[in-house]
């Protein structure tokens, strides 16, 4: 019984870290991994999703619907942003850094000016559950499930549907895709919108567990970038194992040596993994598979 409780605790910690990495990086994986746009406003889409979720939930919408609302609004904002700004920056990834950083500044400070420096959150639903002599938040188990579902859904969308194939083609050779009849603008708009919606979803899912401030997106940034990059060129093959490895390292170090080592260890692990596998995990997995 004792052992089972310990095992559960370990699995829970790992799953928790894994879910956080996967959920927070999914939107970035689409926008950066698929489109090559380095989106420094990723955190602000997360914030947008969280704010909308909190606002709609407190207005009486059931939480799951409120979260979807958050994702939807973030997605729409993303599509608008794509049309106004990002569209001009494809294949200028380095310029997209500057532009999206600008967007991020405007969004953070704009929200601060308009909505004030904080916003009241929504409480975490479902309460706790006791296993052995410890108690755990049930909602966190939901988050873990959501992470797995998200990975499966994205893989299906990008590898098993024509939209996904066309989107990948468009991002790689837009001119050629156009010459083959692809309405590239629409594809871009939808893909970016999807990435933004996924970020919004992350915000919505984590809204009940976090402080609502305009800068809240920043907490997700480093982790999501690191996960996506360690994953490597092929995001969907790489992101899940990357999240798993980083989560294991983080959870392990945090458990044994405390949060500081968890934090530093995560970053050092990133450096080491990239050094050992310069193409990221996906390149390695591809090679191993053949």
């Amino acid at each position, binding site marked *: 019984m004792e052992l089972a409780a310990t095992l559960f605790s370990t699995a829970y910690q790992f799953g928790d870290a894994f879910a956080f990495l996967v959920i927070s990086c999914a939107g970035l994986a689409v926008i950066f991994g698929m489109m090559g746009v380095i989106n420094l406003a990723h955190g602000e889409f997360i914030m947008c999703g969280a704010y909308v979720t909190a606002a709609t939930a407190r207005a009486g919408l059931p939480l799951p619907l409120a979260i979807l609302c958050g994702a939807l609004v973030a997605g729409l904002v993303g599509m608008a942003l794509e049309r106004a700004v990002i569209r001009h920056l494809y294949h200028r990834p380095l310029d997209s850094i500057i532009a999206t950083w600008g967007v991020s500044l405007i969004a953070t400070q704009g929200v601060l000016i308009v909505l004030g420096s904080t916003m009241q959150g929504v409480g975490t639903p479902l309460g706790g559950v006791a296993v052995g002599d410890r108690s755990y938040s049930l909602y966190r188990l939901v988050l873990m499930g959501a992470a797995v579902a998200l990975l499966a859904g994205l893989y299906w969308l990008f590898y098993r549907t*024509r939209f996904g194939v066309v989107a*990948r083609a468009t991002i790689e050779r837009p001119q*050629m895709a156009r010459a*083959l*009849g*692809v309405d590239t603008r629409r594809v871009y708009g939808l893909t970016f919108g999807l990435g933004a919606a996924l970020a919004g979803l992350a915000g919505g899912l984590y809204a009940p567990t976090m402080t609502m401030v305009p800068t809240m997106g920043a907490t997700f940034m480093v982790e999501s970038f690191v996960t996506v990059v360690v994953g490597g060129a092929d995001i969907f093959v790489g992101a899940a194992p990357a999240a798993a490895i980083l989560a294991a390292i983080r959870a392990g170090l945090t458990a044994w040596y405390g949060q500081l080592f968890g934090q530093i260890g995560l970053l050092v692990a990133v450096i080491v993994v990239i050094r050992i596998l310069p193409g990221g995990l996906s390149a390695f997995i591809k090679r191993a598979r053949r």
Partner: protein
Amino acid sequence: MNSGAVLEVVGLCGGYGGETVLQGVDLAIAPGEIVAVIGRNGVGKSTLMRTLAGLLRPTAGRILFDGRDATAESADRRARAGVGYIPQGRDVFPSLTVRENLMVGEVAGAGRSTPDYEAVHRFFPILKERARQRAGTLSGGQQQQLAIGRAMIGAPKLMLLDEPSEGIQPSIVKDIARNVRALNRQTGVAVLLVEQNLDLIVSMAERGYVMEKGRVVASLSREEITSRDAVRRHLTI
């Protein structure tokens, strides 16, 4: 002019940004024709093809496709209307598999035809064998076949073929010639072919245009084109 042409180009000017490469090109292709464009390096053959495909915006002149003014139409609409473009240098999607590359080709034909993978595989068996390989790791010749197959899937009415023989082994050059001609016979697709390979021109084209410095300077009849000397004369300095 006559309205039976699949493609009619009048006074076409265009190029890159400030730089005009095409200086008033006129040509016409009737349905089911295979027409060659020849000319030395840098005269603007590929530029012409890109402009016809809609990837470059003309600065003057008109492009009529199927009798319809397509001058201002975007590349993707042209493709869906039946213009299949096979660029010089192939431009396959390197990280997509062969099969996925062909899937992208389906888009052009969506609504007009059902994708005929059988036919493509018949013409280019290697594309079936390597369906799951990433296109970027194919050899040059394999990529060329993929590029043609990808255009075929979209059931085009007009194919713009830019130097298809470049880097292709002789037997496949012959195959390509044979296949394109067969395709042309079976589906009535018209072909505008840019080439430097004499054999291919001679074995495929029904007539031709000679380009020089952004202009069509001569038109070659069927007789002229089958006599190698006329072609050779135009390709030498």
